[in-house]
């Protein structure tokens, strides 16, 4: 049954087009999706996932498992970067260790969205409030990463610009990805409450097209991820191992929480995926600005070149099995 779940995931359009993008790079085709077209899809996916999450959150309200789940999500986004940092310190200086740690403490919205698509093809229900967890897990790791730099880095950073916390907080909480996701979520809430006629009119755009747009975007992600693979030689075996094992470890931690909170299998998968995924959007952009001493090709290549493909291809069905197994354990 395990292998069948993995196979089922492998043969869905989004994952197959991801492979096609990877293959394009490997065989040397000149297929590319020129900028800013990928940005169109990435903006669209954030807007739609936020909007739909808001609609559903309005219906479910904040009762039941909502607040505990969201609280646990935020706690994980504080814990994971600290654990990661301790591991990474064995190999990297404080700047690189903190930057990579922040990357793994945050999340990948596209991995989350792909997991939702997987659940839909499995006819597994899940709740809109998980999008709130997604949104709230994006930023804290950035702050943790910067505090780690402050604590662990050599006191005198040559040439360092004085750190302006104002712009750091803005970078963490108001970067375009978090801002659009949270904004669309709030709009979804408002529309569901006060303007329900707007829901049906948005649907062909924000709902019906969603799967196809994700598929198209994953074609580009395959290209981009494969282009990163070359840079991984530079990164070395330690980081490569980290990029697979750390997500697995985080998934295990996440699964324990899923069991503790007795989430539904659908919500449980999404929770685990949030813990196991790494950011290649908000965090790298923030780290490049605030910790320029760290080498971007390390944290971007690890998150985008290994962890992302691993999660999309194998991780999601594996985590599904993990969640199903742990939830069938006696509570």
């Amino acid at each position, binding site marked *: 049954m395990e292998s069948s779940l993995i196979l089922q995931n492998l043969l869905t359009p989004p994952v197959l087009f991801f492979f096609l993008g990877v293959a394009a790079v490997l065989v040397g085709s000149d297929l590319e999706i020129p*900028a800013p077209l990928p940005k169109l899809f990435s903006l669209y996916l954030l807007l739609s996932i936020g909007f739909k999450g808001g609609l559903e959150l309005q219906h479910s309200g904040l009762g039941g498992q909502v607040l505990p789940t969201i609280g646990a999500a935020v706690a994980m986004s504080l814990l994971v970067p600290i654990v990661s940092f301790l591991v990474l310190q064995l190999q990297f200086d404080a700047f690189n260790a903190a930057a990579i740690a922040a990357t793994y403490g945050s999340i990948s919205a596209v991995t989350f969205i792909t997991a939702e698509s997987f659940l839909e093809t499995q006819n597994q229900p899940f709740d809109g409030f998980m999008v709130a967890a997604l949104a709230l897990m994006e930023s804290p790791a950035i702050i943790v990463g910067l505090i780690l730099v402050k604590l662990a880095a050599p006191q005198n950073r040559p040439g360092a610009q004085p750190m302006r916390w104002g712009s750091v907080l803005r970078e963490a909480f108001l970067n375009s*990805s978090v801002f659009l996701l949270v904004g669309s979520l709030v709009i979804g809430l408002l529309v569901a409450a006060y303007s329900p006629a707007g829901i049906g009119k948005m649907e062909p755009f924000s709902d019906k097209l969603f799967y196809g747009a994700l598929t198209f975007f994953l074609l580009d992600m395959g290209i981009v991820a494969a282009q990163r693979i070359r840079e991984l030689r530079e990164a070395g075996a330690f980081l490569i191992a980290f990029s697979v094992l750390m997500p697995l470890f985080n998934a295990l931690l996440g699964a324990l929480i899923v069991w503790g909170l007795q989430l539904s299998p659908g919500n449980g998968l999404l929770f685990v995926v949030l813990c196991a995924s790494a950011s290649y959007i908000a965090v790298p*952009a923030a780290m*490049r*600005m605030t910790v*320029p001493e760290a080498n*971007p090709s390390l944290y*971007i290549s690890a998150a985008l070149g290994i962890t992302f493909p691993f999660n999309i291809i194998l991780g999601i069905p594996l985590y599904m099995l993990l969640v199903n197994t742990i939830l069938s354990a006696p509570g």
Partner: protein
Amino acid sequence: MKRVDLIFSERELDGVLKAIDAAGAAGYSVIKHVSGRGPHGAVSDGLEFSGLGANAHVIVFCEDALLPKLRQGLQPLLNYYGGVAYVTAADPL
């Protein structure tokens, strides 16, 4: 007169333009979506969607007398964040 060419990460664009304004330049031009390679590795436009951005190329035509001020404002930024800055002689057409 002189022409100054700056190439650096788009993420630092706001700071660089502020420094150019502060130096009192009469104007500047900005080309975005520049890819490249330098001491800090390669920068492609393939990750532009991620908010990381590619490089920006800024051109400033200015009097020779402005160079020291420009240098003073820009040097720290380029040293810390990376990027290049070169000066060429240029005459109005």
